[in-house]
């Protein structure tokens, strides 16, 4: 069976991000994943879109954000695409902090870490003025 495909497009505006999140949540709830897994996948895509809006487009609206979903037999992939500023050479996102050191708790910098934790594969590519964060989650299909 060929994989199912859909593209979601919004303007670079935090207001519309939830519309993609909800859509992905419902589509993922049809595949063999737990509620928590579905939620975490939604969170990853939302984090990636937020990054695009906040960093690639520096919070300015009027720019295109696209998410291409590809649902295969045992995996789902998301390509989050922008034509803004590209991300600097990818460091491995880490989240090291002392839970008792109140003053130094992180208030940000958790997005890429969450994505790394949840997704099975994460790639970032830039070319021809377009940046693509590709995330893959593998699931076990019990037909």
């Amino acid at each position: 069976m060929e994989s199912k495909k859909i593209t979601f497009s919004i303007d670079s505006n935090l207001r519309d991000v939830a519309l993609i999140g909800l859509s992905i949540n419902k589509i993922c709830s049809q595949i063999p994943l737990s509620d928590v897994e579905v939620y975490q996948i939604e969170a990853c895509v939302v984090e990636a879109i937020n990054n695009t809006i906040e960093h690639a487009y520096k919070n300015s609206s009027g720019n295109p954000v696209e998410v291409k979903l590809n649902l295969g037999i045992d995996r789902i992939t998301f390509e989050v695409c922008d034509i803004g500023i590209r991300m600097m050479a990818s460091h491995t996102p880490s989240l090291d902090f002392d839970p008792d050191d109140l003053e130094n708790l992180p208030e940000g910098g958790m997005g890429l870490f969450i994505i790394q934790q949840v997704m099975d594969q994460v790639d970032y590519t830039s070319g021809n003025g377009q940046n693509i964060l590709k995330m893959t989650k593998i699931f076990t299909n019990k037909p």
Partner: protein
Amino acid sequence: MRLETKKEGGVFIIRSLESRMDAKVAVDFRAEIARHIDDGNKHIVFNVGGINFIDSSGLGAIVSCLKHVGREGELVIAEADETVLSMFKLTRMDRVFRIYETEREAIQAMST
């Protein structure tokens, strides 16, 4: 972000009337809670029972409030459902916040 707040004894209770706590609402949330803290409410229960989605901006806003109440105050979480809780665990924030099953338990733990 639409919030419902009430006071029980010395405990300030916040409940979200919105189901998503994401980047769109995080900045407002932070500012609104900061006002309540500045008004002297430093023992806070955040009942997240109505929230079914939180992202890292939402978590960051809660962390910011925790810092704001400071060491003399407290900010605890109540009624996180399984999915929201998983986000605290994923970011290890479950080791930062005290998380209670019910609002009642949270209030009681704070009052003693």
